[in-house]
């Protein structure tokens, strides 16, 4: 993992929205196949970091590189091409409410016109099966529960088999069973598909699950993992700056007062 190429890199990134500073001098690196978990209290700038990674926002200072491309400097038209290699799951799912689940998941495939209708339907079914939601294909988002919407959003992001996934609080506001189910999908993506991920959460349970489990393809189930086999690192944001960046074991051993306070809840 240490010699894998860097796929996401923030170099001293700062951004102010309106008159409010949101991130100050943030630097991070995520290597291929690694999951970087962004932790921190609400308003620390975690979601903004995801939007910077996909070019929905531009930094005031610093540089963002994704898949070798300077996202922070690219024109919008070039970003549309790059974004086809990146999947994102928004905090509130952001499904298109006037489209069915099938059309939401197939959205990017329909737009690209690169596959015939049967192939698109087969891909949609496969993506929905991966999140165990094949039966809701013809429903509208408003007819689904919050957890189901979140899983459809994951299926939509997976439809084009992206190289990078960005998850914004994928389990926020969900019941423990649904949350565990979603985290299983994310671990499977990390360990089976070697997808590079940036995951925002303020739930320590999610962070612990990513650090302590790996997906065993032979058993098709979660198995306990050690610090190196989990391919997960952590970055803690506090007052718009990174106060910790390291592995799960280093996070537990951190002497930073804010990190300790955060971990102790």
């Amino acid at each position, binding site marked *: 993992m240490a010699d894998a190429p860097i796929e996401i890199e923030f170099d001293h990134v700062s951004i102010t929205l309106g008159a409010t500073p949101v991130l100050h001098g943030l630097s991070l690196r995520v290597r291929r196949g690694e999951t970087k978990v962004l932790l921190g209290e609400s308003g620390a700038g975690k979601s903004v970091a995801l*939007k910077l990674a996909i070019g*929905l926002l531009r930094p005031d200072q610093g540089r963002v590189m994704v898949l070798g491309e300077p996202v922070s400097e690219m024109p919008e038209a070039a970003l*549309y*091409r790059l974004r*086809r290699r*990146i999947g*994102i799951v*928004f905090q509130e799912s952001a499904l*298109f409410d006037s489209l069915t689940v099938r059309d939401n998941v197939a959205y990017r495939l329909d737009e690209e*016109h690169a596959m015939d209708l049967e192939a698109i339907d087969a891909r949609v079914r496969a993506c929905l099966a991966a999140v165990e939601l094949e039966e809701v294909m013809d429903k509208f988002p408003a007819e689904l529960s919050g957890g189901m919407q979140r899983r459809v959003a994951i299926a939509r992001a997976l439809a084009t088999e992206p190289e990078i996934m960005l998850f914004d609080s994928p389990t926020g506001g969900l019941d423990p069973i649904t949350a565990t189910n979603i985290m299983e999908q994310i671990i499977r993506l990390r360990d089976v598909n070697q997808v590079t991920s940036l995951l925002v959460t303020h739930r320590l349970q999610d962070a612990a699950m990513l650090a302590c489990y790996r997906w065993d393809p032979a058993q098709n189930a979660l198995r306990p993992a050690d610090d190196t086999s989990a391919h997960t690192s952590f970055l803690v944001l506090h007052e718009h700056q990174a106060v910790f960046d390291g592995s799960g074991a280093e996070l537990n051993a951190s002497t930073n007062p804010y990190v300790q306070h955060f971990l102790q809840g």
Partner: protein
Amino acid sequence: MATAAPPRGEEEVQWGFIGWLKGQLEGLQAYSLLTGRTFRNVLARPFYGGDTMLQMDSIGVGSLPIVLMTGFFTGAVMALQLSATLAQYGQIQRTGQLVALSIVRELGPVLTGLMVAARNAAGMASELGSMVVTEQVDAMRALGTDPVKKLATPRLLATISMTFSLTIVADLCGLIGGYLYAILALRLDGRQYWYTAMQALGATDMAQGLLKPVVFGIIIATVACYFGMSARGGTRGVGRATTQAVVSASVLIILTDFLLSRVLIGFFGA
């Protein structure tokens, strides 16, 4: 020599005004950029023909009943009002002429524009505003689609073509409304009504009457898309954007009608 500093209250008012002016100029700049991108995308691939047809159906078919009624009763009331004045000069037989000129040149395009603005600018601004505040527009960008191309350009094309078509329908209904009032209430000869109406209308009147709805269509679509896509602050922000879109589009239609009429009369003559 040192000058006395202005009282603090006065300074705040001055900076408040400058801030307001800066906000207005930034808004105008954003509106101009969005309008430019919307027009530029008309010729750029991919073309969203299906979305344009859906919008045409929503704007054209959806607005047809109110445009039919508005056109018909405006024609009838024009015949009522003008005939009373014309009767004083013994020229009541010219009712058709005046109804035709006022409907085709002014009232048809302006009232159609206002009706389309009231119904569709509100619909467009609230739909786009809701998409913005629920991050659907961000999701669209993240999925590699230009929201201006996907959302604004089809609405622009549909609004222009439908405002143009609805104006022709409104003009026709206005003439029929005037005709029915003329033969039923004024007991005028129907053939004379149509003869004077057709004689009065020249190519320049038609050109004026058909150019205006194109401009009004552009105003309605671009203003609605601008306010919709600039919506901030949840459902209250969407409501505010909707109101601003309808008010701004309506005021701009009336203002532009005056300016266009002045220019076209100067160009073609009265």
